[in-house]
């Protein structure tokens, strides 16, 4: 029950009309606001599942949006703003996991799995490939082939 309740609370937080509210203060410069919005899309709403802070209207998401705008106003470039967020909230706040020692396996997994897969296929076929020699058909087989071809064409 506790879980259902907490889930319910989460959902009430996460789904509602619109994230960026009416009373929210936007940046005066449209270019800067666009940059802020771009950054917000890369940041995760910490109390929601799988939502960026642009898509969420949770109170926390609103606070995070305010912080992002503050960083932009303070003159941060995109990288600085993001690293400010991760220094505060950890890598968890990034929707795109960083490429580092802990995630190298994750990022390289498609490539590694493909290589392993191809290798397995190569190994299993290599032994058998040598057997792929086309032997000429015997007279009996040839007549059977002709018969079948005739059947196929003349229906």
């Amino acid at each position, binding site marked *: 029950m506790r*879980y259902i309740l907490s*889930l319910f609370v989460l*959902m009430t937080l*996460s789904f*509602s009309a619109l994230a960026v509210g009416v009373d929210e203060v936007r940046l005066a410069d449209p270019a800067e606001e666009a940059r802020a919005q771009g950054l917000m899309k890369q940041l995760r709403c910490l109390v929601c599942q799988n939502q960026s802070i642009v898509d969420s209207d949770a109170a926390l998401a609103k606070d995070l949006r305010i912080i992002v705008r503050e960083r932009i106003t303070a003159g941060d470039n995109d990288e600085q703003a993001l690293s400010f967020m991760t220094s505060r909230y*950890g890598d968890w706040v990034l929707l795109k996991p960083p490429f580092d020692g802990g*995630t190298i396996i*994750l990022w390289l997994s498609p490539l590694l799995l493909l290589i392993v897969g191809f290798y397995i296929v190569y190994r299993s076929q290599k032994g058998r490939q040598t057997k792929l020699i086309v032997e000429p058909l015997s007279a009996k087989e040839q007549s059977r082939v002709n018969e079948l071809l005739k059947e196929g064409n003349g229906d």
Partner: protein
Amino acid sequence: MIVEIGHYTLILACCLSFIQGTIPLYGALNNKGRLMAVSAPAAYGQLFFAILSFAALMYAFVVSDFSVANVARNSHTLKPMLYKISAVWGNHEGSILFWALILSIYGAMVAYFGRNLPKTLHVKVLAIQALVGLGFYLFLLLTSNPFERVYPFPMEGNGLNPLLQDPGLAFHPPLLYMGYVGLSVTFSFAVGALIEGRVDAAWARWVRPWTLLAWCFLTAGITLGSWWAYYELGWGGWWFWDPVENASLMPWLAATALLHSAIVVEKRDTLKSWTVLLAIIAFSFSLLGTFIVRSGVLTSVHAFATDPERGVFILMFLFLVIGGSLLLFALRADKLQPGGLFAPISRESMLVINNLLLSVAAVVVLFGTLYPLLRDAFTGDKITVGPPFFNIAFGFLMIPLLLVMGVGPSVNWKRADLKGLASRLSFVFLTSLAATICFFIISGGGDIMAAVWLGLGLWLALSTLFEWAERIKIFKSGAIKRMSRQPRASLGMSFGHLGLAVAVIGMAGSSFWSTEYQNVMAYGDKAKIGGYELEFIDTDGVTGPNYTAVKASFDVSKEGIFIDTLEPEARVYLTPPMPTTEAAILSTFSGDLFVVIGEANSEGYDRWAVRLYYKPLQIWIWSGVIIMVIGGLISLSDRRFRTGAPKGGKK
């Protein structure tokens, strides 16, 4: 009383599945005909009782019998009838009962359509089907009884999550479950064949229609869910890489791979052990999907009914089913002698590449979904693996897949002539390349990946049409006759591939060229997006059966000509009290205009938060998928599958 009958028949179905799973299997292993004869009647009986049980639960929902705990938790008297019924499978207990019901439907279908299968294989397949069912019945009876009573009973129910009160989502679970559970049949066939120690072309011909049927349902079910997310969640997206979406994508990828590898088994008698393994994996993904959704291991926006205690049962069940079948595979796989040989450039090789890419994609999706969990468990670090990762990793695998898809159908079986192939397809390749470059320049540049995806879609579409034209020798006399005589399976393939091409073009358009406008608007304000002009006219209060709403109206015009009035709503449901958005969408061939209305300012109520999206080619995604499913159905109707094989097309 009716509710108790439902409970009782559930127990009967459970007992029958135990009988069906044991006695005939013993008979088949010891060649006792009488014991084997129990099999099919048990399957019919199990279906009969499962239907009664499900009907009893549905009855409780329809008459709003709140003395049943499940009904009290998930229904409400004010709810429209459609949602009273869909609430039956919109909750944990009901959805598992629904799963068990579908499992027994498939079991009875196998019993009926499989009458002319070799007797021992038939019995074994039904036994495995029943044993899987037994797990679900026990799960229901021991941990999630849908018929549990409450006393004192409440006068009114809690209601169903408003997001689920939508026609799209009323039908999404049934379709998805038909797909998930359909894979149980291929699983049972695989395990049955392992016990028999024999996999041959006839086996593959048996398995293909069932895989196709499951695939069609899965494709339709996933898309319906995606469509629902698109118009109901109001974020303008259609795929969020949410764990629950991933849970349905993994079995789809495995089923798609299986669909293709079964062809190789049927035509060339090779890749047998791999195909059997794939059948096991595909169903394992289905079970895993249920586990991920139902155990709450990954709390997600979709997992509405979560309860970790039940997870232990599912985990044990998963271990038994997946572990047991893989163990059997390890013991028996060497009995499956590989048959036909093939050269590196051959249809077989193309299908192997298809299988490799699809399987790796499925594993990567699984890995990405579980990675945060694993990392947290081992190191305590919390990280998020969000959509950007999946888009990159999945895209990396789909690019070669789409390239190979264009070539594959034109390649000969066994050994193909690379030069001839290149000269035949180079024209198509260069045409799509040139078209893509032209388009890229005309559209004024932008993201290079947009052009790549668009080009891939174009290449797939053109090469599929080219292969079809070549197959019927379109410029030689008698083409019409040849066209009508094409085997349905090949026609289905063309449709399937073409559908994917259309969907890929749609995805490229919608993902890379969509525009967004987000602002506060007062009455009379105007906005421009995607070539449309919108004027915010006014808002109005509306009362629905179990919600109140604000309905806004926007006049949409293009180049000064009035087109339509769009009326998005912001609803607040009564039970449970929850706000939802109902987007208004203007769909055209070239793109969707998507309008969402949000909150008003607290004083005055004269300014409203509004979000507008323009999603180019959005409708292509849905159309593409419909073409794919039609392709699947055409294939399913192929004559070859009907000779001694199940009719399939039923339901």
